[in-house]
């Protein structure tokens, strides 16, 4: 049986979760969803996804904090993260310039171009294979 790559989608917007999970599932990914940062971290540890898409602006725990936790966690630090956000493009500069955070592997602003997102995910997975 063919192994399907696993993607974890973290977003507090239920419609965004539905959209991205349907899209990735239709493109032959195994999809795991989380509606907030805390659940996202748990899922990242328990499900060991191959890639994570992360919303930055979430009410309970900010995506920036989660990104830092993912990048410092023993079992999660190697999982590539694609940030998908509705906040301004200044955030990319902010993430790129923080000492405590490595730049994420991908950065997209909502509404995302899903074909570009898929290309980015494939690129990341291909690079991880090497």
């Amino acid at each position: 049986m063919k192994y399907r790559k696993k993607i974890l989608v973290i977003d507090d917007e239920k419609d965004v979760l539905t959209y991205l999970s349907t899209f990735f599932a239709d493109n032959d990914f195994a999809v795991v969803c989380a509606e907030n940062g805390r659940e996202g971290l748990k899922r990242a540890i328990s499900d060991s996804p191959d890639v994570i898409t992360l919303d930055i602006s979430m009410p309970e725990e900010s995506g920036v904090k989660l990104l830092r936790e993912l990048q410092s966690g023993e079992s999660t630090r190697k999982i590539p993260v694609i940030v998908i956000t509705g906040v301004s493009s200044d955030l990319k500069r902010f993430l790129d310039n923080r000492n405590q955070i490595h730049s994420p592997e991908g950065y997209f602003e909502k509404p995302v171009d899903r074909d570009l997102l898929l290309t980015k995910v494939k690129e990341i997975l291909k690079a991880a294979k090497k």
Partner: protein
Amino acid sequence: MSESSTNPEQWDDGYEILFNSVPCYVTVIDRDFRIVRANDAFHDSFGYAPNIHCYEVYKHRDTKCRGCPAEKTFGDSKIHRSNQVGVGKKGQKIYYTVRTSALKDVRRNLTHVIEISNDVTPLRKLEERVRQAERLGAVGQTVAGLAHSIKNILMGLEGGKYIVSLGLEKNNKEMINQGWEMLERNFDKTTSLVKDFLSFSKGRLPRLEIVDPGKLVMEIVDLYKEVASRSSIELAPEIDDGVRSAPLDPSGIHTCLTNLVSNALDACLASDKKGTKVTIRVKEKKGVLIFQVEDNGSGIDYEIKKKIFTTFFTTKGGGGTGLGLLTTRKIIEEHGGTISVVSQSGKGARFEMHFPRKRLLELYRQSTRNSKGQPANSK
């Protein structure tokens, strides 16, 4: 002290040097409000002004100023203080704080008043710059928040469209329905966002009427009782006997209570508990009219409590616009009131709106005065 030294018009050189070296405006005014002496600092900023009325020089006006501190000092011999805006010799605005003090002759007759003023123009300009920066900051924050909400709605619409197309392609009715619901939900969100944003951005004075606060509470209970009962949530009004009628904007308070009750119902729905309850209470304490909306739902944790009154903050994901509590706070503040929240995660929440009656009455008097001054057909 000799007679001549107490007469400001006959000061000797020693006093003159001292008078002119003081780093603030000093003028001496007689009972006709004419400037009989002015120091160099005053001349430099306001121009030379012998025997001219102080109001002509300070303010370029023909009549005495209202609440003139010098007039008060002539009346009671006491020191008076006030903040004023004058016009300098180049036509520039000068902000100054003035203190007036009685100047008496040897027979203890109050003949003149001395005015000592400090120029606070640079400070005022700085304050204005800070206010301007705050205003711009608020505009920036609002625009950024609006953009964030719109981007999420667009993503929801895009998602709905995609899922409907996929459903059609795969002939999957369930998928078509799911996508269609997403489209509907995000269209509704656009309407709510526009409505809430317009209501938030509307800067207006509350339209105060004498209303029964208990009646307002009952209106809200009537509005929500069916929704609450469908979700097995008890909705209970508690109206204290001592609550009297008060000047309130009924439509504004209605908006505040609906926002708070709808949040409380959502918090009950989000909780796993059985026997959830929302209480809308109105009471009176030490001249303050208090509305409370209390629930035993999911509660609010510390991190969220810090942000709930900020623009576009929502915990409801797709369900909220993030403007409800902000609009509520704005309406309450327009009534001269305050809002606070007591809550713990998992233990429910209590929102309180406090309206000091004294302030409500002042606003009511002000609004009736204004409406009397308006032409009959004005709105």
